[in-house]
């Protein structure tokens, strides 16, 4: 439960998080349909985007998209959740909730990135994995698990950014990177406040209370050492989308430069070092006690 030694210090980012919003206020901001989404980040921050589609066994999931792109002079593999801004798009993209095909595509793209030593950037923005009947039939749990297993061992630098709602396993599936950045008004939770309230309070209207109690804001998660950097949003992202996007781009670039400076895909020792640090990053997350001492 300590911070990654390499984390850039808060001072470097310049601005201080300002807001005094409630957790539920931030949930609403994180879900705002006008908030910049993955394709907006790719469109503004990247050139030469070539979308790569399909899981090579069943379908293509538009709720989790990805492809090759040039980011600040580097070719990278970029991927992220993508919902819609209107009903038609939302149906096409299943409200940004990936089906097994989405996770299988993500896994395929990670392997692809590894083959060609392309760093990976992910954008996390989903209320969760699709909870439908056919998703269960095609192994939603297995698809997420295989994606996680691939990601944790992928031999290239990976930077993940929570840009909106980080919902449960569907968000985690593309979050196992070397850095986890998070916008100030994004949230990241093990279950939605509504679901948590319904289960633990037996009353879905207690969502705001649940949201507060669950500690789902970037500030909370920064304090817990679960995220590596909180990216301030001086105004909510949808009110200043380009500024937000470019700020995120700058922070990703700073971390990417740092990771790539010491990374050589042909140097086995360096690759192992990358994977060892990634292992330690997740190995130490948790809060437990043992024989009187805290873990």
């Amino acid at each position, binding site marked *: 439960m300590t911070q990654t030694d390499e984390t850039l210090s808060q001072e470097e980012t310049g601005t201080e998080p300002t807001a005094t919003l409630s957790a539920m206020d931030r949930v609403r901001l994180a879900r705002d349909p006008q908030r910049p989404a993955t394709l907006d980040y790719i469109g503004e921050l990247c050139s030469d985007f070539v979308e790569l589609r399909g899981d090579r066994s069943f379908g293509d999931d538009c709720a989790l998209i990805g492809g090759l792109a040039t980011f600040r002079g580097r070719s990278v593999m970029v991927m992220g959740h993508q919902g819609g801004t209107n009903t038609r798009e939302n149906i096409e993209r299943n409200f940004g909730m990936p089906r097994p095909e989405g996770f299988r595509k993500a896994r395929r793209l990670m392997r692809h990135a590894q083959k060609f030593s392309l760093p990976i950037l992910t954008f996390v923005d989903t209320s969760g994995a699709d909870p439908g009947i056919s998703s269960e039939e095609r*192994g939603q749990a297995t698809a997420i698990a295989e994606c996680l297993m691939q990601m944790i061992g992928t031999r290239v630098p990976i930077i993940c950014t929570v840009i909106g709602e980080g919902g449960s396993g569907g968000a985690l599936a593309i979050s196992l990177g070397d850095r986890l950045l998070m916008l100030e008004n994004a949230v990241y939770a093990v279950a939605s406040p509504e679901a948590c309230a319904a289960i633990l309070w037996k009353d879905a209207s207690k969502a705001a209370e649940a949201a507060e109690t669950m500690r*789902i804001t970037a500030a909370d998660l920064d304090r817990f050492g679960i995220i590596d950097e909180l990216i301030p949003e001086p105004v909510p992202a949808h009110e200043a989308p380009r500024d937000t996007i470019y700020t995120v781009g700058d922070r990703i670039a700073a971390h990417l430069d740092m990771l790539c400076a010491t990374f050589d895909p042909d140097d086995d020792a360096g690759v192992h070092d990358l994977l060892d640090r990634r292992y330690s990053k997740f190995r130490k997350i948790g809060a437990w*006690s043992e024989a009187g001492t805290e873990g």
Partner: protein
Amino acid sequence: MRNFFQRQGKFRPLSKGDERSAEQQQIPEDLWVKCPKCGELLYSRELERNARVCPKCSHHFRLSARERISLLADSDSFQEWDSTVSPQDPLKFVDGQGPYDEKIVKTQKKTGETESLITGSARINGRPVVMVVAEFNFLGASMGSVWGEKMARAVERAVEERMPVLTVNASGGARMHEGLFSLMQMAKTIAAFHRLGENRLPHFSLLVDPCYGGVPASYATVADVMIAEPGALIGFAGQRVIEQVTRQKLPEGFQTAEFLLEHGMIDQIVDRGNLRDLISTLIDHYLGAPQGLGSYSANGLRSATELEQTVTVVDTPGPATTTTGGMS
């Protein structure tokens, strides 16, 4: 194909001849148990002797973690690890039922366990194995920080000592009281099992009823061999959640072990009485039979396909009676 052999042990399954009639219905409840699948009234001690498998319809009753260990491990071979690792309350979480830290203490008293995961080493038919077993009675075997920590330690020790890992997985979902710490245990456990795989040590995952949420969505479904008990309910999203979200009726047999087998997610469905021999055979395949022990199962196992054609009783699970939470 060869004969499928019977195990000699405490939980030896009853033969069909041992079945009793269901007529004696006036006996106190703690002595008699009604089978939720076939309705048969079963004498408790006989059910215990049959590894809590209904002798009439083969329904597999749930086992506690300790019962599971005594079923699978050689007598007195289980050595528990890290039993003093206990949950904390990092969020100072208070829900409609009160504070989380009080809930922990109550649950610990009620169950006699410190947490929902028990880890240790054991022998199965003489083969050393790291054994990790979920306890569903402890807050629905929800996965929190202790689960992740104990799992990581157990798997790291397996790597050091070059032992195979058997996980017995049940779960109702994430330990929501621990917030994102809970979700991150999916990452922590998958990282540990990735390391196990890099060291080319096998992981056998046994899925038992019920198994939902982050456990099957992390290490439990990417094992080298995936086994489930007959009729076990296994999935990502819980059935109530799916019904609420989709407003559709769930198909019959949805999310049962048989459903998973049909959809390619698991290798075999194995009756409880045959688990030990299957595991020890697997260990021999991956790590070689230990010196002096030779191959335990000289007569071999039948293919699962063959088996199903014979043991028709597990082919037709009744309507699922277990409801579970899960992750949405």
